[in-house]
């Protein structure tokens, strides 16, 4: 792809979500793990999503796919725009046709996300069959071209071809994740969603897998949504980042400027954590206090019970996202009207 082509492809987001709301019916009442979230994913860019455990990162990803690990969850509002078309309200069959072809997904624990009783080749071939994949050389019968495509994909992620006849338990975690990447790329998607793709792997393998993902993403100018706990990774590989807290975006921005000058007290608390753990950049989250209970979220700014700058207004009104030089931040401190 020429630089000009790359440029034109990056102009528009391949996928954007607007005011997305997702609800889960739980024993403790209706909860909203995703509560009015808007994000945009431009082609060829890596967009990071960070936030403490339970902040709604995975639920946002599943909402884009409209595919949830629990039948109690459903998208309750907002739009998911793939190009010009809204995916919300599409039929199950239309959504099936998009999953695995226009949007690929890479999961956290690669070994548990592969069926133990089917060969690797079979699992990827099924995907090609499901989407009647027609890329590649036009000649030849389909079964043969599927097999060729599987070999091609495996080679592109650095696996020997004969992996296609093996079963998941015969591969290492890193190899399984390479298979996961191959499957996400199988039908040349517009967007790849990677939900903590390296968390379950050995530290030594993590960097390899991350580099591989980045290389393939750049080569194909595909948009990548990278969900991670690792701020170091965000700083290193992402172009843009969203910081989530309790089902909402609290801050977003261009990675370089946001890391240079974080605006939101929550983001700043996370960053100071980075500074205190010199070098590695890999921290669990160390903001004192804990994530609020989503069945009864705090009023106003959801961060106010833990915020060192909290004012009376903070517990009464939820702050909107204010424009900042680095991006946007949802905090009353940015409001001129705040005394």
């Amino acid at each position, binding site marked *: 792809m020429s630089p000009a082509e790359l440029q034109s492809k990056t102009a528009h987001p391949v996928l954007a979500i607007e005011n997305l709301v997702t609800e889960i019916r739980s024993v403790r009442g209706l909860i909203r793990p995703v509560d009015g979230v808007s994000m945009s994913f431009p082609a060829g860019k890596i967009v990071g999503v960070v936030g403490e455990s339970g902040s709604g990162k995975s639920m946002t990803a599943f909402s884009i796919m409209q595919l949830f*690990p629990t039948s109690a969850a459903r998208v309750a509002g907002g739009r998911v725009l793939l190009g010009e078309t809204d995916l919300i309200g599409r039929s199950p069959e239309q959504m099936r046709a998009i999953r695995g072809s226009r949007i690929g997904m890479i*999961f956290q624990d690669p070994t548990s996300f592969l069926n133990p009783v089917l060969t690797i080749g079979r699992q990827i071939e099924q995907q090609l069959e499901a989407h009647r994949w027609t890329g590649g050389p036009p000649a030849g019968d389909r079964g043969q071209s599927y097999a060729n495509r599987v070999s091609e994909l495996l080679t592109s992620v650095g696996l020997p071809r004969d992996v296609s006849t093996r079963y998941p338990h015969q591969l290492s975690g890193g190899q399984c994740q390479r298979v996961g990447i191959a499957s996400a790329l199988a039908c040349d998607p517009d967007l790849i969603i990677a939900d903590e793709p390296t968390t379950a792997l050995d530290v030594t393998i993590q960097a390899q897998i991350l580099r591989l993902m980045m290389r393939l993403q750049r080569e194909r100018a595909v948009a990548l949504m990278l969900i991670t706990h690792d701020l170091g990774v965000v700083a290193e590989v992402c172009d843009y980042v969203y910081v989530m807290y309790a089902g909402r975006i609290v801050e977003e921005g261009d990675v370089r400027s946001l890391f240079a000058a974080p605006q939101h007290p929550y983001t700043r608390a996370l960053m100071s954590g980075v500074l205190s753990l010199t070098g590695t950049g890999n921290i669990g989250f160390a903001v004192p206090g804990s994530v609020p209970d989503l069945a009864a979220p705090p009023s106003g700014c959801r961060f106010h019970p833990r915020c060192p700058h909290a004012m009376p207004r903070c517990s009464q009104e939820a702050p909107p996202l204010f424009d900042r030089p680095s991006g946007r931040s949802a905090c009353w401190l940015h409001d001129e009207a705040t005394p």
Partner: protein
Amino acid sequence: MPNRGDKTLGRFALGRLVNSIPLVLGVIVVNFLLVSFAPGDPVTALIGDFPAPPEYVERVREQFGLDQPVHERLVRYVVNVARGDLGFSFANRLPVLDLVLERLGRTLVLMIVTVTFATTVGVALGVMAARKPHSAADAAATGIALAGYSIPVFWLGQILVIVFAVWLGLFPAGGMRSVRVTYTGLAALLDRARHMVLPMFALSFRYIAITTRLTRSSLLEVMNSDYILAARARGISERRVLWEHGLRAAALPIITVIGYSFAFIVAGSALVETVFGWPGVGRLMYDSIFTRDYPVMLGILLVVSLSVIVVNLLTDIAYALFDPRVRY
């Protein structure tokens, strides 16, 4: 199943058979002692209730070697069994091995048909239930399973006879073929099939219940697993997710339970064969208990134990073929 290195399936099977020799020996000895110390005297049973001269009783006792001490009889029995001689039936006047094998064939026919039918119905009901948990279909399947668990086979058999044979006259009440008419060819086959319907159904019911419950729970668990979610995220159709991903993985516990409950079916077949007059090994066991026909009882116990061992082995092999993670 633990990792056994990289032997072939054949060697694994052979090893398992060799390992079961002590088990079989134990079975023989325990059965022999149990039967020897059981109350009742075969000679009295053989001669009948009318008074016989004591010399005659003594002669019969000697003739069958029953006057010798237990341990000597045990050793002789084990040696004979090792030579393939299971003894002679007092009551049937036939070698035990021939008798048991003939009857076993008939029982196996009934059991194979039963297991095939019950597995098909049970898996279908289980899938129906698991597809939409807590739906009407699920409630219906669960209800059928509950009935299967709670209705005694013996009672069910009698009800089936009363309703379908006596009242409705749809199926014969018992036996394996019509005795008054002699059919040939296809007609003979159909005649046997008609005779098999009621006993098969009686024997199937509990098995259907087990398979339904197991398929339902196993499939529900599998369908909640990460790799099913991942298959859906790849755009695999629901039909394929269910049959190719779901049921294939869910089949493992189903295979195990079907295989391992073989022994229970054998026990169930004794009851069913008695109710329906099916001339199988179960019916033979029932009769031989009444006539105190010890060699036959022992022969049946031995052959049934052996077949349970073989079926369990076949189960493990089937499991290994289904689950690529198993190494022998």
